[in-house]
């Protein structure tokens, strides 16, 4: 028997390549997100633009900054997760090599230093490759941000010299942190394990796995419980963050859960029963392939469902609150012209103006881009079911709008394009809504007419009981573009949906790709160590086809198990979405993006199947006797 010699470099390179790749891509993703976040946060619109355009661009940038914050969080989480699971897997796959070193005199400390040294080297090399790759990723993400109009056309991610330190630090820290627990475990391998033919797997549900799993489970539960009480923005943010700890918790427990789900594979024929036995036996390998799948499915499906549900809930809420028959879109103060049309009973004319709101004073002073809206308080309250919330709004005062972010009492400083309104009291406010909207509501007299003249305005029109709708529409068409309130709300909802889809693509796209690469990594690493196992199966009488088929069935089962468990993690998000929407808009809303679910399932199955097919074909290429060393 060839014994240790099968541990040749040729067989070990996928381990190191996989670990290297996980660091390089993780560093690239984190670096790109960080640079874009900083570039967006310090973004200054070109001096040549009008102040209104500059303020609008800044307001967009604020939204982009919070989105990039989420991207950075997810990128860091994914990098930490994928890198540590890859490193732990590579260490585990080498238990026999490590035991052999122990046998010939290696101490625990030496093994630990060896593994840590390797991790440092891989972290360094990975970061060195990840930094230039991160620039490419940044250009891609920056292009996406411009393309989807989250940032203006002149926005570009900017390189900073100090990011070199941050990225090398990230690579080294994640690699070392990722290998720390595994190295400790690996160094405690018993020398006798070098003599076991199959490199007997260590206990997989270790104490640290239990601890990590329970911590993440606790985190997920805390978010699930608190989210419904977090108000609109808090609840939405918490619901969007459930998937990460939930997926990590499920992944931590996957060595227990995957074999359980594996029992569901039909044990038909020799390949089926072999696949089932392998799944139960190689818990470590199964869990390592399932982990990135769980995170991929949990994060992508969970957050897509959350985004879609909140958008739907927002649209539903808006529909429920809107009391109007027609909507007219025309710039400027068109209220009087609309009101003079026969058959019009009431009209709420709302003009949007970009603004800068400053709250607090002294140290706590904070300026933020915002959207101000000039309204007629009574008409607005009637058109949007605001009751008497706005009766106090008159003269030189403002009210907090449905977009939130402004306190409903107190004083703010308000700056409009070309006009500093100075300190201004907030005297009223409407509750924040799911779909957002203007942050500040202003009574008409505060803003000079010149500023309103060409500003985008929408007018919500209610018809009198005896009105002739077509005639009114025809008359209103001379003022601006007319649509029924229903059609307008539908178009608005569709618009918001496409925005939330775009956000999802920007946030999840590259992260999902990274998780998918993590899956491929695990399949390749797992197969690399299986040449001998395959060869043994073949000398036992299985054909190469049967061995490959059995590997495929096993990979299919692991993938399905990973997707189901990812579904569980996504389910945690969905439950939070239901309780949060119930608390915030009074009606539980859940919108599952089935197309995306189907796409994730199809892509995951395709990728794991193709990878398993290629790796098992390559691992069975040589005649089994050569591998088993029967040439002596």
């Amino acid at each position, binding site marked *: *028997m060839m*014994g240790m010699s099968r541990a040749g*470099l040729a067989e070990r390179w996928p381990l190191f390549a996989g670990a290297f790749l996980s660091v390089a891509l993780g560093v690239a993703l984190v670096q790109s997100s960080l640079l874009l976040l900083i570039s967006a946060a310090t973004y200054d619109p070109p001096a040549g633009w009008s102040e209104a355009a500059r303020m609008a661009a800044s307001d967009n940038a604020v939204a982009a900054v919070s989105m990039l914050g989420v991207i950075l969080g997810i990128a860091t989480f994914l990098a930490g997760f994928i890198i540590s699971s890859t490193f732990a897997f590579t260490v585990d796959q080498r238990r026999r090599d490590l035991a052999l070193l*122990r*046998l010939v005199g*290696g*101490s625990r400390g030496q093994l630990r230093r060896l593994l840590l040294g390797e991790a440092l080297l891989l972290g360094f090399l990975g970061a060195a490759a990840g930094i230039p790759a991160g620039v490419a990723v940044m250009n891609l993400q920056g292009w996406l941000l411009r393309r989807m109009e989250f940032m203006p056309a002149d926005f570009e991610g900017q390189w900073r010299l100090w990011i070199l330190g941050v990225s090398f630090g990230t690579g080294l820290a994640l690699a070392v942190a990722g290998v720390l627990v595994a190295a400790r475990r690996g160094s405690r391998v018993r020398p006798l394990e070098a003599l076991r033919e199959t490199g007997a797997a260590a206990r997989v549900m270790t104490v640290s796995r239990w601890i990590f799993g329970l911590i993440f489970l606790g985190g997920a539960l805390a978010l699930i419980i608190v989210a419904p009480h977090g108000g609109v923005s808090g609840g939405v943010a918490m619901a969007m963050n459930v998937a990460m700890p939930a997926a990590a918790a499920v992944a931590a427990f996957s060595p227990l859960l995957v074999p359980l789900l594996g029992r569901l594979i039909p044990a038909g024929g020799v390949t089926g029963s072999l696949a089932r036995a392998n799944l139960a036996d190689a818990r470590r390998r199964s869990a390592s392939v399932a982990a990135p799948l769980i995170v991929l499915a949990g994060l992508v499906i969970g957050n897509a469902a959350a985004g879609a549900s909140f958008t739907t809930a927002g649209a539903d809420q808006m529909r429920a609150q809107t009391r109007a028959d027609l909507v007219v879109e025309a710039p400027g103060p068109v209220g009087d012209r609309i009101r003079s049309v026969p058959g019009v009973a009431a009209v709420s004319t709302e003009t949007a103006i970009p603004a800068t709101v400053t709250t607090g004073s002294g140290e706590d002073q904070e300026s933020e881009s915002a959207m101000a809206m000039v309204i007629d308080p009574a008409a607005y309250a009637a058109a949007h079911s605001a009751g008497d919330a706005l009766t106090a709004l008159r003269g030189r005062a403002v009210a907090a709008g449905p977009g939130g972010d402004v306190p409903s009492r107190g004083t703010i400083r308000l700056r409009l394009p070309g006009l500093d309104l100075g300190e201004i009291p907030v005297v009223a406010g409407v509750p924040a809504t799911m779909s957002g909207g203007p942050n500040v509501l202003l009574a008409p007299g505060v803003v000079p007419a010149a500023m309103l003249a060409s500003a985008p305005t929408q007018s919500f029109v209610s018809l009198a009981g005896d009105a002739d709708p077509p005639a009114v529409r025809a008359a209103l068409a001379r003022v601006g573009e007319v649509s029924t309130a229903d059609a307008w709300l539908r178009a608005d909802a569709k618009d918001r949906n496409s925005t939330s889809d775009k956000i999802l693509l920007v946030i999840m796209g590259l992260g999902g790709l990274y998780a998918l690469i993590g899956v491929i990594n695990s399949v390749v690493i797992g197969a690399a160590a299986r040449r001998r196992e395959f060869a043994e199966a073949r000398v036992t009488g299985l054909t190469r086809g049967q061995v490959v088929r059995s590997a495929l069935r096993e990979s299919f089962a692991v993938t399905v198990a990973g997707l189901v468990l990812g579904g569980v993690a996504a389910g945690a998000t969905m439950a939070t979405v239901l309780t949060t929407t119930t608390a915030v808009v009074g009606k539980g809303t859940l919108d599952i993006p089935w197309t995306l679910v189907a796409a994730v399932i199809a892509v995951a199955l395709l990728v794991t199947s193709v990878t398993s097919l290629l790796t098992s074909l390559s691992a069975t290429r040589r005649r089994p006797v050569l591998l088993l060393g029967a*040439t*002596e």
Partner: protein
Amino acid sequence: MPTTDTVTRVNAAVTLRGVSRVYGRGAAAVRAVDNVSLEFPRGGWTAVMGPSGSGKSTLLHCAAGLEKVDSGQVIVGDNDITSASDAELTALRRTRIGFVFQSFNLIGSLSAERNVALPLRLAGQRPKPAEVRATLARVGLADRARHRPRELSGGQQQRVAIARAMVTRPEVLFADEPTGALDSTAARTVLDLMREMADAGQSIVMVTHDPGAAARADAVVFLRDGRVVDHVTGAGPREVADRLAAWER
């Protein structure tokens, strides 16, 4: 004048006193080694024989400190290693004992000479190339120093493994079925090599089920169901085979 006790200690490379090792619990418990007391003499080559599953490997592992014993005492040279710490056992493996196994257990990515140098490097020494080459030359592989294990035959790989075990000049060499995976020619080369080493004063404990191999040793211990059942010195292959056959009956 040394006391009897000291004489025993000085003359024995490894001493086992009432050693037992039990695997599993309750009804499934297997007494792999059952109250064995043995002395492996210094400068001698002892073969441990017995049917498959009789506890030979377990005995060897206990004697080498690779396996904890459930009761009894294990003494290597004059060191009681029965409850030695991991660090002490590591030091023992580094300097005082060497291993050879049926499955060679070389590191596939390292050349023969680097495999041989490995124990010295792990012990914190800077191995002199000449010293490593000399060790390889002693096993007849001076010209294969730069070959990887997979470029060597099984017999050559086993000789590299012996060179690796010998490079630290251990007090005792433990070998578990060292010829188990070799054809008869390669096996003879390896046994000749071990004979040569034993004649030069190397203490060797070897587990085997091959009477031909056992007959090359100075003494043969027979094991059955974890117990020592017989002990012969200077027996030829025919006698060893007859005794083994008698115990296997």
